[in-house]
């Protein structure tokens, strides 16, 4: 009888471990989910204006046209280049743009691109072309969009 364990004393301390576990779990959850959502970035283009042209020195502008047809094919100077609309890469267009930019550098003219996109071409394909123009090796920001019609 004497060896019987002593009646356990009531423990006044609150066990906080489950709360801390939960807090860390939620903290890690929000840390992870908040980084999963990709942040939106900028793809900039500048349309040449008559005001800017009047204010600046006269610079020869070497223009070229890039067409995006309804099937998402990229056409530059009547030459069909990239035809896979599901791909985000436009290697042939990039290659032609390199040549075009080099030629413009040699002649001292400013490169400018006119994008003629078909009405039913998808937005992503149009962005693909702009993305190629924003490539560090090409870097053309002067872009004009034509082919607008009000229905």
């Amino acid at each position: 009888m004497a060896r019987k364990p002593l009646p356990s004393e009531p423990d006044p301390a609150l066990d906080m471990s489950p709360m801390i576990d939960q807090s860390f779990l939620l903290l890690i959850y929000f840390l992870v989910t908040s980084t999963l959502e990709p942040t939106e970035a900028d793809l900039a283009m500048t349309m040449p204006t008559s005001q800017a042209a009047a204010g600046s020195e006269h610079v020869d502008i070497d223009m070229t046209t890039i067409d995006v047809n309804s099937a998402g094919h990229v056409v530059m100077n009547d030459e069909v280049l990239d035809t896979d609309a599901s791909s985000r890469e436009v290697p042939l267009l990039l290659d032609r743009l390199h040549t075009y930019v080099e030629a413009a550098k040699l002649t001292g003219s400013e490169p400018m691109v006119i994008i003629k996109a078909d009405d039913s071409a998808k937005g992503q394909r149009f962005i693909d072309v702009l993305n190629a123009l924003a490539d560090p090796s090409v870097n053309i920001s002067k872009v004009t969009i034509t082919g607008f019609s009000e229905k």
Partner: protein
Amino acid sequence: MASIKKRATPEYEEGVPMDMSPMIDMTFLLLVFFMVASHLITVQIDRRVNAPTAKNAQVAKDTTGRIVINVLEDGGVFGYDQEDLPTSEAIEDYVDSIKKANDDKGMTTRLNLRADKKVDTRVIKKVVQAAGKAGVNEVIFGSLTVEKDEK
């Protein structure tokens, strides 16, 4: 003697508990911060717009003077506060009113066009044309630098 010693040991340990309140304070602070921050980011952009992918897009450095226009997949055009802009004239007036306010503050106005990747290019051209008429010639296309998983 032995029984007294045994009882004395736990009493001594209970006397120096670790103070966990600062750790819990910090955990809750971080938890609340991430809960609030993750919510703030999502309200600024229209969730209905599925932004296109462009690897060469740059993370925004300067967000002042921007006019946000959202273009949904079905071709609907909406302003920053969900203003419905069904016609070119409505877009032009909307851009013009914000541009005037920005001009008064001495800020350069740029159009931040958040166009869905599946929208017809016709709508993109319509918005860019209308903004050009209102005198805004810098256009920023909101795009993601990494491809988002399709749901």
